[in-house]
């Protein structure tokens, strides 16, 4: 099937070239880091993890998100998702690769990376994170590839694959749980030391992940003949809505516990993030932006009229992604390290080089997504599944113009 990725338009190749240029630019910064060490980053003795690890954490959520399409399809036999499943799985592959790369660029001695296997230490959560991330990558590669190949040959999916599919669905929950365990089992970091962290990670993953997936799919629709079934989109948006509400509810629980109990250790990180502490107010603006954007996205999602407005949807999802990113891709990490073990504040901000290295990893992820989505949309096109029609609906929509009418706008799809 790989040959599909080789046949593309000029625009396709242009996009790939653009990504390669980004990767090349980023790799210069990475080489600099290899030569000079992590001193080129903004990290230090007090904030010893930074942008890399927070991006890793955020992207684990993206990896876990495909399951919000896969689970309804296999566990609930919700068939409108049938043609979307492969994109969830392929997105997970790209996300897992980015996660692993963010770990690789973060460690001080990458050549010794295999020590995690050579000197396997099961009492370290990082060991388990290595297992679940690589396992999830492998499962999605296997399931995605075998299914798509069977589809292409117009054969039913092989029976032996079933156990792998079900395992991968359960596995998706494990990757984010284990990633939360990395944080929530540390005795001195109060912002992380909370039983609800894993649940909050999952909730935030199941809103931000599918939101990113939908945005990428919308972009894919612009450049291919693929069209998401309307029903699958509306269902996924409902899932995003519930997950975002649960995410913010869990955050509220944190705030209540910290401030009603009046426990200084629990309050201080929140105070630092949202009001400033010891005169340090670096993150206050950003964190309130998170709250504001979260409120806006929830408002747009819970109002049926706004939620079902497909023109507004990309904006709604974009706002949600920014909100969850500030929360989990930035605040979570800096708030965990501040106040420091000495109750002082050490501000952290990534350096330009750090951002360039991160850009490299994101560009590699985009490249993987591009190639995999190209293959998947190519196969779907060959099979004529879930294709865009002249009226703008998908062939999977039971639209009233399925039989050759020429309406150009506002068909009444049955399930819209």
């Amino acid at each position, binding site marked *: 099937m790989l040959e599909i990725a080789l046949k593309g338009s000029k625009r396709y190749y242009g996009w790939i070239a653009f990504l390669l240029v980004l990767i090349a630019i980023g790799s210069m910064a990475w080489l600099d880091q290899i030569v000079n*060490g*992590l001193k080129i980053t903004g990290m230090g003795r007090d904030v010893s993890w930074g942008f890399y690890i927070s991006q890793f954490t955020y992207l684990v959520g993206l990896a876990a998100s495909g399951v919000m399409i896969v689970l309804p399809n296999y566990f609930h036999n919700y068939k409108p998702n049938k043609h979307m499943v492969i994109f969830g799985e392929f997105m997970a592959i790209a996300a897992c690769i980015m996660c692993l790369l963010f770990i690789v660029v973060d460690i001080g001695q990458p050549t010794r990376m295999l020590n*995690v296997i050579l000197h396997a230490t099961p009492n370290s959560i990082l060991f388990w994170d290595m297992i679940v991330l690589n396992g999830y990558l492998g499962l999605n590669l296997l399931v995605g590839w075998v299914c798509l190949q069977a589809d292409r040959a117009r054969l039913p999916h092989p029976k032996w694959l079933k156990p792998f599919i079900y395992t991968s669905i359960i596995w998706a929950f494990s990757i984010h749980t284990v990633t939360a365990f990395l944080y929530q089992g540390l005795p*001195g970091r109060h912002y992380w030391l909370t039983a609800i962290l894993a649940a909050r990670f999952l909730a935030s993953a199941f809103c931000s992940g599918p939101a990113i997936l939908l945005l990428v799919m919308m972009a894919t629709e612009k450049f291919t003949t693929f069209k998401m079934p309307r029903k699958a989109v509306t269902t996924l948006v409902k899932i995003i809505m519930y997950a975002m509400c649960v995410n913010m509810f869990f955050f509220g629980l944190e705030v209540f516990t910290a401030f009603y109990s009046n426990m200084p250790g629990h309050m201080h990180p929140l105070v630092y993030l949202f009001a400033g502490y010891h005169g340090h107010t670096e993150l206050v603006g950003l964190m309130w932006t998170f709250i504001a954007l979260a409120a806006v996205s929830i408002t747009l999602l819970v109002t049926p009229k706004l939620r079902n407005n497909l023109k507004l949807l990309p904006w709604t999802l974009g706002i949600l992604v920014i909100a969850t990113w500030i929360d989990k891709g930035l605040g979570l990490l800096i708030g965990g390290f501040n106040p420091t073990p000495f109750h002082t504040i*050490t501000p952290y901000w990534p350096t330009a080089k750090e951002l360039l290295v991160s850009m490299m990893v994101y560009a590699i992820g985009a490249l993987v997504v591009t190639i995999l989505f190209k293959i998947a949309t190519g196969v779907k096109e060959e099979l004529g599944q879930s294709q865009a029609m002249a009226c703008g609906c998908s062939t999977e929509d039971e639209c009233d113009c399925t039989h050759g009418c020429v309406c150009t706008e506002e068909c009444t799809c049955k399930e819209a």
Partner: protein
Amino acid sequence: MKNNRRSFIKLAGIAAAGLAIAPKAMAAAMGGSAPIKEDPKGITAKQWAMVIDTTRLNTAQGIEKLAKVCHSVHNVPFIEGKQEVKWLWPDIYEHSFTEQENPYLADAVKKRQYALLCNHCQNPPCVRVCPTKATYKRPDGIVDMDYHRCIGCRYCMAGCPYGSRSFNWGEPRDHLDLAALNKEYPTRMRGVVEKCNFCVERLAVGKLPACVEASNGAIHFGDLNDPNSEVRAVLRERFTIRRKPSAGTEPSVYYII
């Protein structure tokens, strides 16, 4: 011909397997450990511990002096700013004993500086989280580091509730006086974590930790499990506190207040 080739490949396969297994088998035959000859002068304990008398050692200057000794003995690079590396350093009460604050602390206690270092916890979170056993607990209770195994993931730094660990963000040897190195202790390479090691290399040859030796008796050192040891005698007589007892790590560094 065919038979010959087959038997050759078989033989080659067996030989290759033998070559792969032989070193491991040799190591196993030798008891699985490197042949280290212990120094008969070496001193041992079940759980080494330190009691710092803050009535005697309480100025930034006094502690800096000990830190200087420690850092030169261990070739600790001098780096300014947030990427600093330090094994032993002074800090004020509020920073040292968080969660044990008191707005009306006795002036004497409030004014003091406290010597901070790795606590060599009995339940060290850093050891629990290390994915490669590069930081590990020795039978004598010391939490030590294997600089050659550390992958530099810095999970131990996130795990330590005392901020006792430093990472070599850049090349540490750029910040050392190479002419004045202590040849008895290795320098580190970039990308690994380091911290106080209770002077394991000195205990092994019968010397007390460098800071203890330089403290003129203001730091007591001994076996916590031995009721007759110096530290136990001091702990029986004087009121001591430890840093962040609520973290459940059971620090082995005590402070006389």
